[in-house]
């Protein structure tokens, strides 16, 4: 009886994973969250040692994977469903490579700026960054950028064209994501990846992506509330 129930559970799990080819990207995101949490406990804030740039870049990658990958699960599913069954996971991997590229360019720019200008990432800039992010949330440009994150393109089924198209699709969605979420990610960076800020901004980003009728004014209010908190603690 117990063995039968176990076999049934395994079968259900296998079916679930088959139906959701994006599962391992979500697992990557959860692993990145866990790493971010453990890093906060051991070495809070940005490193200031000689290897600061490497450390900051790693932190940026973790932040992007943790916060941004859950936003593109739909595009990842589209990539998998529009690919031949045997190359679904490869197509997802190429998509992710393309998707992370624009975020890496932004990350390198931010970490380089932080290395050149000492003190750029301290809490003093958190409140102004949150105010800017709140303004961006209610702008028309943000609304348009968010909509464009849902675009799809045709994907070739086989060969180098299939790889190229998966990377191109990932790059397109990544660029659109940067255009939509740059302000939220900058807030996370300038507040030294404080977990509360990461949680709130991730909640906003996920909410505005999946809840069609989430009022942007509400997200702006939440960010302004956070800004008030930061301004109060900075003085």
């Amino acid at each position, binding site marked *: 009886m117990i063995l039968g129930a176990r076999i049934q559970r395994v079968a259900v799990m296998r079916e679930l994973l*088959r*139906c959701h080819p994006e599962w391992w990207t979500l697992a990557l995101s959860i692993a990145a969250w866990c790493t971010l949490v453990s890093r906060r406990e051991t070495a809070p804030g940005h490193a200031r040692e000689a290897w600061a740039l490497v450390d900051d870049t790693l932190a940026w990658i973790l932040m992007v994977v943790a916060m941004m990958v859950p936003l593109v699960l739909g595009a990842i599913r589209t990539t998998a*469903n*529009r*690919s*031949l*069954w*045997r190359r679904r996971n490869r197509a997802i991997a190429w998509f992710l490579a393309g998707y992370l590229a624009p975020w890496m360019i932004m990350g390198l720019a931010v970490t380089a700026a932080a290395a050149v200008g000492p003190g750029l990432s301290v809490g003093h800039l958190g409140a102004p960054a949150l105010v800017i992010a709140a303004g961006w949330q209610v702008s*028309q440009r943000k*609304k*348009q950028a968010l*909509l*464009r*994150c*849902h*675009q*799809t*393109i*045709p*994907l*070739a*089924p*086989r*060969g180098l*064209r*299939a790889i190229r198209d998966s990377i191109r699709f990932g790059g397109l969605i990544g660029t659109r994501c940067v255009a939509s979420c740059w302000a939220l990610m900058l807030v996370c960076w300038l507040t030294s990846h404080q977990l509360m800020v990461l949680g709130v901004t991730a909640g906003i980003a996920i909410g505005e992506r999946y809840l*069609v*009728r989430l009022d942007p004014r509400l997200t702006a209010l939440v960010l302004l509330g956070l800004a008030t908190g930061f301004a109060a603690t900075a003085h």
Partner: protein
Amino acid sequence: MAVNGWMGSFNTAALDPIFWLHHANIDRLWTVWRRRKAGHLDPTEAGWLTNLSFEFHDATGQEVSFTSSQVVDTTVPLLSYRYEDEGDPLGAGLEVIVERTRQMDQLPEMVGATDKPVVLKGRAETVELAVSQPTGPALAALESGGPPPPMYLNLENVTGAGRATSYGVYLNLPPGSDPKNHEDLLAGVVPMFGVKEASREDQGHPGSGLHYALEISPVVRRLEAKNAWNPGEIRITFVPRHLRGDGLEAAGDPIQVGRVSLYLG
């Protein structure tokens, strides 16, 4: 259903009397759906009820503005009318549809697709699909000994910049033959209504274009019966539905079909 002429575009569709019959019937079917079950309720969010308003002209030509909440119930003022026939057209057939929907829960598997877009310029255009052996859920369904999984032809990312004619989509149409003599090979008609708007990146659309899914299982069965079906080689022919006087070409702007793909399941 083919759509052409005034009905072929968002901005001119209401100039065609058929538009009013068509949409009045859709509104009537909405009422039928709401009466069918207690759980069939409209959403209550302000996003569609009150946040958007639409401009019209009244009988005197004055511009007036309404929100959906003002017209969603036809029995109260502003509209104050009730449909003559609110009977359920499905009646006892409803359970059959529910059962069919359950069967459609099987995971679809893509087994073939074009690797380049197809451009339609008002003339007949043929593309070939290289089809692979299924290796996922479609293979399992075939090996289970049950009925073969249904086959769907997907037309993905259909884009265009202007008005376009409707196209008939034929499966394995013999080269050089007159499509009118092979209506049994017609998989469906794609009307291209709204293609211009769906192709544009604006505040309402991401610009991905239109998507169509045509079930081709009945056509495949007819081809199998004629021994004219090879699952490894599939030919798709797009034929414009409304030709000009010369009988060769249709009016309208070019259309690009981003990808034609075949799904099982």
